[in-house]
């Protein structure tokens, strides 16, 4: 049960050439969106090491958003295809680890799609808010009796 006024923390990994620029141009055109995302800038989504994603979740992120260039548009020719391959498998791992799908998104957002960036962030925050805090590091309680059901 999410407590009073839960504000989701979203860590966003954006590639320098597409999604980071989209975020810049969202700013330049003063589009307004929710302030829950924190952007970590990388040159290419291909630099995103799945370790970063797990680390973000472990350190308290309620959601992780990855933004890269559209397939075929990668500034480095095919970095985003490698991202796609890694994230495809990583999604399965996270699912098995009980992390809801809405908490982890891969979006192709080009420099032109400032509005898409805005709606994506808004939408994700809304969905994660509905899910409540991830609470990965919830302290475990040792019961007196050993439960079996």
């Amino acid at each position, binding site marked *: *049960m999410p407590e009073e006024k839960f504000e989701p923390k979203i860590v966003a990994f954006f590639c320098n050439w597409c999604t980071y620029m989209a975020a810049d141009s969202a700013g330049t055109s003063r589009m307004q969106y929710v302030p829950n995302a924190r952007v970590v800038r990388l040159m290419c989504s291909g630099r995103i*090491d*799945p*370790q970063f*994603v*797990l*680390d973000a*979740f*472990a*350190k308290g992120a309620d959601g992780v958003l990855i933004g890269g260039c559209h*397939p075929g548009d990668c500034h480095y020719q*095919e970095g985003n*295809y*490698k991202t*796609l*391959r*890694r994230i*495809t*498998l*990583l999604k*399965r*791992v996270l699912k*098995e*680890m*009980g*992390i809801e799908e809405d908490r982890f998104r891969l979006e192709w957002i080009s420099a032109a799609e400032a509005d898409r960036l805005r709606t994506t962030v808004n939408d994700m925050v809304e969905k994660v808010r509905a899910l*409540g805090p*991830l*609470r*990965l590091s*919830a302290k*475990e309680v*040792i*019961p*007196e*009796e*050993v*439960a*079996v*059901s």
Partner: protein
Amino acid sequence: MSDKPKVAFYWCASCGGCEETVVDLEEKILDVVAAVDIVFWPVALDFKRKDVEAMPDGAITATFLNGAIRTTEQEEMAHLLRKKSQLLIAFGACSQLGGIPGLANLWDRRRVMTAVYREAPSTVNPQGTAPQAKHAHDGKQSVTLPTLFDTVKTLDQTVEVDYYVPGCPPTPKILLQAVQTLLSGKLPEKGAVLAPDTALCEECPRKDTRPEKLTIKEWKRPHEILIDPEKCLLAQGLLCLGSATRGGCEAMCVKGNMPCTGCFGPTSRVRDFGAKSLSALASLVDSNDEAEIGKILAQIPDPVGTLYRYSLPASPLRRKKPEVI
């Protein structure tokens, strides 16, 4: 007692394979025994918890503790030995990374107990009896059992650890080198894993057979193909984790013509074995088409059990997200 360095061995949630490694030192064990006083080794020698409790703090030079931390009792022992030891060494995969028992972190205590005492096909248990932390023998007396944690923990998630000896189990050679290093007086940097810091490929006898540009269109499972005894296993489409796994085992599994499953854990430069090997292996998939990528990766039917076989508790996520009750 003599002023030789005092060494202790202890186990927690483990299979005993690490203890076998100590025994497998065979004659060499005598050199070790000659150089140290073994002050605590329940499996072999008659010293008990009380003896340890009686020691002054830091009386033990080095304690080698194998096994993951699974029960309240094991947690207590870990704290006790930490207090009494100058150096605490996580000995073996379970202690370092959680090991195979750590796979239990995909469920919680309740589900594990239910499966074992309720659902096992050979178990007849109409009353749904289960082991209890406290069982009343009668009105007055009762017998107790330690309680399992929901989450299997590594040693360093329980107490501070000075060094690690990797492997499931560590090879006698690795153990011997570790002991010698510690006896040499020239202590490595705290937190070091006492094994080579390059991946297994470095020492793999099949190293030269891996093509320079290897991509993978189809993942194979060991039972599906006749495994070539000479050729790089990854190049045969088998999910060999050697490129992500710390070396030092001299590629025993590969010499047995089976892929490396990663029991020596990651190198010092990698925080999460599973995520990193996932990144490397998925990158090799030979397709840029989303659907096809999905299809090829579906040929890895159990990513968690395969990539986190020994290291689930050590991963940043540690366990499956606890169900909110």
